[in-house]
């Protein structure tokens, strides 16, 4: 997904939210310590490594800034009562208030990044619910990459690991669908199989040939319908109540636009078998077993025509 907002600048909404958090923090703050005259410590008292570990521990702490400064992780590096020895007050802010600027922006940045990858989950949970989810998630799966594009990779697993969260099974499905869409957006561009190239493969070789999908394609089977939630976000409509019913979809890219199609179970079975590398004859035979004999050929032919027209395959490898 495009992450233009994942840059060095805080966005305006972030600033507004930060203001509210900072006002609350200022009311609570018990760490308004001014440095004593002449109390400037020697630099060697605070080694760079310790300063960075301390600041990171404070910034990523889920509580307010006072709790963050007093947390075991931060205290292990710098005792809370020594804050003013490490951070200067400004003409208008205490050391804790200055640290809180960074502390407040961290979570807003994480929320913004995950909103970009999981807009339907954000739509379902609402602002507060989503912020709580992000706070819990980044504690378990903090960013370890140079890019925020990878931050949300573990969200489906997070719901599996926390089955007690409300609607965890449904959100697991929705997260898998949204992650697939993100992966399709970022996948390598690959050439698309043309009808002429397909016809060039001798008919006798078709049964053992393999259809290689384009890189920008993912098939997803879910236990809950997810398309209504993707559509609710897209059209800014209220999200429906989740319900349990098996559902299948394919996300793919055409002309650099990400598209998605709902599939029938049989269609999914055949497509996922092909994506998994099964030879054409074997995949069709397996899927055909489930289809009514009178419609078998016409149905499979229609699917293939759609998939090839939509540019879902890169090559037919004999």
């Amino acid at each position, binding site marked *: 997904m*495009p992450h*233009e*907002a*994942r*840059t*060095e*600048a*805080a*966005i*305006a909404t972030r*600033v507004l939210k*930060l*203001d509210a958090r900072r006002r609350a923090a200022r009311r609570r703050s018990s760490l308004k310590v001014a*440095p004593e005259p002449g109390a*400037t*410590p020697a*630099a*060697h*008292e*605070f*080694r*760079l*490594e310790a*300063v*960075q*570990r301390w600041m*990171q521990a404070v*910034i*990523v702490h889920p509580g307010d800034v006072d709790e963050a400064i007093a947390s075991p992780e931060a205290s292990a590096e710098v005792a809370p009562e020594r804050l*003013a*020895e*490490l*951070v*200067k007050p*400004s003409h*208008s802010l205490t050391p804790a208030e*200055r640290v809180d*600027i*960074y502390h407040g*922006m*961290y979570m807003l*940045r994480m929320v913004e*990044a995950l909103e970009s990858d999981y807009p339907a989950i954000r739509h379902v949970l609402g602002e507060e619910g989503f912020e709580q989810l992000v706070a819990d998630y980044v504690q378990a799966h*903090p*960013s*370890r*990459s*140079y*890019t*925020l*594009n*990878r931050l949300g990779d573990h969200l489906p697993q997070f719901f599996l690991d926390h089955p007690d969260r409300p609607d965890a099974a449904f959100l697991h499905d929705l997260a898998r669908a949204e992650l697939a869409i993100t992966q399709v*957006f*970022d*996948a*390598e*561009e690959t050439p698309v199989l043309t009808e002429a190239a397909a016809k060039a493969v001798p008919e006798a070789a078709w049964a053992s040939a393999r259809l290689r999908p384009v890189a*920008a394609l993912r098939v997803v089977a879910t236990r809950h319908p997810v398309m209504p939630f993707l559509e609710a976000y897209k059209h800014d409509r209220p999200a429906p109540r989740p319900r349990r019913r098996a559902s299948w979809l394919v996300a793919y*890219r055409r002309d*650099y636009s990400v598209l998605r199609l709902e599939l029938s179970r049989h269609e999914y079975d055949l497509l996922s078998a092909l994506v998994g590398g099964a030879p054409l004859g074997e995949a069709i035979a397996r899927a055909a077993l489930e289809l009514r004999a009178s419609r078998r050929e016409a149905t499979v032919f229609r699917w293939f025509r759609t998939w090839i027209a939509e540019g879902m395959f890169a090559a037919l490898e004999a």
Partner: protein
Amino acid sequence: MTSNRWNYPDLGLGIGLRTSHYGHILSQKPEIGFFEVLTENYLDTGGRPLFVLDKIAESYRLVMHGVSMSVGSTDPVDFDYLAKVKALAKRINALWVSDHVCWTGVLGRNTHDLLPLPYTEESLRHTVEHVRTIQDYLERPLVLENPSTYLEFTPNSMPEWEFVARMAEEADCGLLLDVNNVYVSAFNHSFDPVAYIDAIPGERVCQYHLAGHTHKGTHILDTHSDHVVDPVWQLYGHTIRRVGLRATLLEWDANIPPFEVVRDEVLKAKAWRDQEVSDAA
């Protein structure tokens, strides 16, 4: 008129490349001196962003600007990341590669913020060593930007401008002088922005940044969300008198207006540049 140490060209006036402007740029091909590309947005994608970037690279001069090099971090240098940066620079023929004088995380984590360094001898030695390692790998000078900061460390043994100047000299790297950041940090830390500019080694400056910010009364946040304020234009005028003409880029990252609004904003710099040229004549 002084030049920079590497004779990087004065590209004139440029704009940060943003998704919302892709359509306009591809269809209208607006006249602009150069675009600055946000490095990390193009490292791990083979989709539309890279396709658009390749198209734009055919018609415009590009420079790269990153946020994850973390030159001041005590973590080891991330060579996997650098390999991708190097490949992208080659792919789009980037004229230079820049990042920030900051750190973004330790212990393998990334906060994705440009965090301030303590300005101490230890930090300086460490940062210089990292910058040298990175430059060796990239096989080009690194251009580093002075950050906007919201706190100062009590054990600082030198002001930021001395740290930046010494780092540039000792690591033999370039500087991206963000005039708005100087103004923001000057307010936040109560120093004289002109003294900062005057202490910067001009021959190492390869590029300028300009941007709008958000004044909160008690402090200023570098939000890139508005027009450039008059005091920053005044400081820009002083900077080009002192340092010389350099590629000048406007950053607009939040509440991004139509392309023409951003371009009109950066074109305001032309009057300051023309004044400098006429004064120098």
